[in-house]
């Protein structure tokens, strides 16, 4: 029992009086809206009191930081030991262009790198593929071969800085390049740290960067988990991501539930396929959430996520190591909450969202730049976004104490409610036979489509507000400086790739491609073969074409 009976009695008595008063007030001064809800349309009550959390058990449900159920954080000292990692997602144009941006960010106090690749790279096509026309270097950096990768890492201390790479279907190829680059620089694999996103289930559900069907896609992921466990122990081989689920229009609860259910699917696959025990690899699983504009909903989602994952690991997978129960996550503020109209307002939105992520206990954070709704961020806009994190960390005092909102009637009640609703989804997907089966039925895709459509209608009807879009509209446009990617990037990248193809050892290259093909056919771990292949200057597409050939291609069912 969370409260003594006496407190609950007092609370009920006071509530009674207050409710009477509210009834009188509302009859003469009606509230502004009949229904108050979060951005995800979760209904929120007028007031929360001890009554709302009376069934909680302090030790069992809340506890202390660094202890099960990790509601209050994984680390016993919270941010007092170390702030979250300031990790700005960036990449544009050529490897050289991105390397320059990275060095600028490191000089300004960024503490980790995060790579945005262009669409051809993300989809496993080389810059000279007909499918890449018009896309090279536009939304991120173009990487075709190890030569590009070495240019990307030029002057970056790979034994000190950790690097996150947002890469999914071609993750094995790009991670192989990272490993090969480290070896060439004399840094042992045991010393490199970072993350590959490598979460394919959310691609089928939301982001739609897919290549092969779900089953072999998950196989390749399990290969990386196994390889990392054995050879690259400081690497996070997967970042199980809710970010894109949310950007596709899900509710916060759907983001929470689908992400964790994806995590369950990966854990089951590694155990079944690779025969590893859960504590061998679970400590290296990482997560990635969105921080949207609804402040408390986000904080509660992140708190609920930690407790939920701890329970999943302990009860469902019988993990023993507390580190297996840690949900370590990166957060990015919500791109979809930003507006092209009055773009400077985006600085404020991002600050609020970043604060929510910090109060939710994130381990790593990307803050969006004010111009990201229009183009890739300019240097100036990125600097403001990075400074936003530094101000939150070092000026506002929110890092002084751990999980400062714990014990709030509202925060604990909403945390509980979101956890319960997420469990309902998780059990429903269990009943369907797991996430791959649910995806094949179109279940998560259509749940998200419903939520996205509902939200858009609420915006169109002004039931929900977006400042500058459906309220407080100004007619004059606010012009902001925009980063443009030169059309020349594409031509230059293509000629670099052609030069690499001309100079590489054709025989060694062909042998390593055959080796990957054999590994795929025999169900062997592809990672060692990929590392060998990229050293022989195999391109991203060449490796991915082998996967397409052996495993087949997935086509978007086009659900809406």
């Amino acid at each position: 029992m969370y409260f003594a009976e006496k407190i609950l009695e007092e609370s009920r008595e006071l509530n009674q009086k207050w409710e009477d008063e509210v009834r009188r007030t509302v009859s003469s001064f009606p509230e502004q809206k009949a229904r108050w809800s979060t951005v995800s349309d979760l209904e929120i009550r007028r007031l929360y009191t001890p009554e709302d959390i009376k069934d909680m058990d302090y030790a069992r449900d809340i506890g202390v930081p660094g202890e099960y159920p990790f509601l209050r954080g994984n680390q016993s000292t919270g941010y007092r030991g170390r702030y979250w990692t300031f990790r700005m997602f960036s990449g544009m144009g050529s490897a050289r262009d991105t390397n320059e941006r990275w060095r600028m960010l490191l000089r300004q106090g960024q503490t980790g790198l995060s790579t945005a690749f262009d669409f051809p790279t993300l989809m496993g096509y080389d810059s000279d593929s007909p499918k890449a026309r018009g896309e090279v270097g536009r939304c991120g950096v173009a990487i075709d071969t190890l030569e590009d990768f070495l240019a990307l890492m030029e002057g970056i201390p790979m034994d000190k800085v950790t690097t996150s790479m947002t890469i999914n279907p071609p993750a094995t190829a790009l991670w192989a390049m990272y490993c090969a680059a480290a070896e060439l620089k004399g840094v042992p694999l045991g010393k490199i740290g970072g993350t590959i996103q490598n979460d394919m289930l959310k691609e089928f559900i939301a982001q739609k960067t897919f290549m092969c069907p779900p089953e072999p896609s998950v196989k390749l992921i399990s290969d990386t988990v196994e390889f990392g466990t054995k050879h690259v122990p400081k690497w996070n081989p997967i970042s199980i991501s809710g970010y894109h689920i949310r950007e596709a229009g899900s509710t916060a609860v759907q983001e929470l539930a689908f992400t964790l259910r994806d995590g369950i699917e990966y854990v089951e696959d590694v155990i079944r396929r690779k025969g590893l025990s859960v504590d061998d690899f679970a400590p290296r699983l990482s997560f990635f959430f969105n921080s949207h504009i609804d402040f408390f909903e986000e904080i509660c989602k992140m708190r609920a996520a930690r407790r939920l994952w701890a329970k999943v690991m302990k009860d469902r997978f019988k993990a023993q190591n507390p580190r297996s129960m840690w949900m370590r996550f990166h957060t990015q503020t919500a791109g979809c909450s930003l507006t092209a109209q009055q773009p400077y307002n985006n600085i404020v939105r991002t600050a609020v969202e970043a604060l929510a992520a910090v109060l939710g206990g994130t381990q790593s954070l990307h803050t969006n730049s004010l111009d990201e709704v229009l183009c890739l961020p300019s240097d100036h806009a990125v600097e403001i976004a990075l400074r936003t994190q530094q101000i939150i960390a070092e000026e506002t005092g929110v890092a002084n104490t751990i999980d400062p909102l714990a014990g709030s009637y509202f925060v604990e009640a909403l945390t509980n409610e979101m956890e319960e609703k997420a469990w309902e989804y998780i059990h429903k997907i269990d009943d369907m036979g797991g996430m791959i089966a649910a995806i094949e039925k179109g279940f998560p895709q259509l749940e998200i489509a419903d939520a996205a459509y509902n939200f858009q209608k609420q915006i169109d009807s002004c039931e929900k507000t977006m400042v500058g879009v459906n309220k407080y509209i100004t007619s004059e446009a606010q012009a902001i400086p925009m980063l443009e990617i030169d059309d020349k990037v594409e031509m230059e990248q293509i000629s670099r790739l052609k030069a690499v193809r001309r100079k590489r050892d054709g025989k060694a290259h062909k042998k390593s491609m055959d080796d990957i093909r054999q590994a795929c056919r025999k169900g062997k771990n592809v990672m060692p073969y990929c590392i060998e292949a990229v050293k022989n200057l195999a391109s991203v597409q060449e490796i991915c074409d082998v996967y397409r050939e052996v495993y087949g291609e997935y086509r978007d069912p086009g659900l809406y």
Partner: protein
Amino acid sequence: MEDKKIRVMVAKPGLDGHDRGARVLARCFRDAGFEVIYTGCHQTPEQIVAAAIQEDVDLVGLSCLSGAHRYLFPRVVELLKQHGADDITVIGGGIIPDQDFQMLYDAGLKAIFTPGASLDSIVEWVKTNVKPMP
């Protein structure tokens, strides 16, 4: 005689998978009483044009958020023309900078809708500017 319905194809050319807008719009067109075909992500201009002709649509709505619209949108219009199907109206949407509007209109797109455009305004535009082909 019953009015013939407007046939609309929503398509995402190129490699980007940001299909939230396309899917919301497809559903909104359906609710507005149009016949809707959504082809899914990662379509080449050639695939889109082939589908548009085969499905005999009145309108193609293209969505692109990757910056590749400068190549992809005009290419769709050009291919429709090559196939003698330039009676199909083409509109576009997504992250399209203001300075690209003119080149897209010059290429033959009839309207561009960017973030903040309401669903009603898009439906209204279609009802006003697109008539079902006999």
